[in-house]
């Protein structure tokens, strides 16, 4: 049951995320690349990649480690 509720939570998160994505596109970004020309854009991109890789690793760890109960 715990697994089912976690799955439902992730599905809900995905749905909300996609709604937010569409809103960001429509209200701000409109298909453009607003931060492409900021100074040091390559470093910002690599930094963002590192942040997301840590998030990926954390989710992988949390969802694969054996339950303590």
């Amino acid at each position, binding site marked *: 049951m715990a697994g089912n509720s976690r799955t439902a939570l992730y599905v809900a998160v995905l749905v909300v995320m996609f709604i937010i994505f569409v809103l960001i596109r429509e209200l701000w970004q409109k298909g453009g690349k*607003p931060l492409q020309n900021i100074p040091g854009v390559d470093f910002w991109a690599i930094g963002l990649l590192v942040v997301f890789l840590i998030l990926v690793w954390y989710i992988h760890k949390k969802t694969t480690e054996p339950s303590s109960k």
Partner: protein
Amino acid sequence: MSSTEAESQPRKPLLTSRQLGLAAAFAAAAFAFRASGLVITLAPPLVIDLGALMPCLAGMAAGPIAGIIVGIARGIPSGLPQVDLVLQPVKGIYWAYVYKYVILRVKDPKKRWPVFWIVTWLLSFFVEAPLFIFANSLLGFYPFYPTWPFTLGWYHALYGVYEAVIFSVVIAALPSVFGWKEGKAPW
């Protein structure tokens, strides 16, 4: 297996919580890179959008359905959503199967790396590039031939190398996420 035995086994979910979680994380990354425009300079003025690599990585780590979800997330902020909403998920699908059934079939990790680099480059140049150039040609941006393989060939040749480098760095940093050490896809 008898029907009674089949009924008594728990049904495998379409996506596990791990796959959904990774799909959410990679989708957020795919969207964030493209929506913000944070790019890595490839060969000025051409750039590489790390968001376009996320459907491939999601497919490798969490399977084709995760690849599709992430591909859609990458397509939403695109300048050409009619192209990216279709083709980015396609990348997630073929990368998932190529990774599981071709790359991870090579059991020796020392041999698997060069196979991975070659397959990445070949997929980039002979599958991804023609797909996107064909779609853009349908929109009237340029003719399919000679844009592929000649006019934009040098860019895609270089892009394939960068793609192989970034994939390798990510997999080397997180081998357990991609089942690299085990030689078995974790999905």
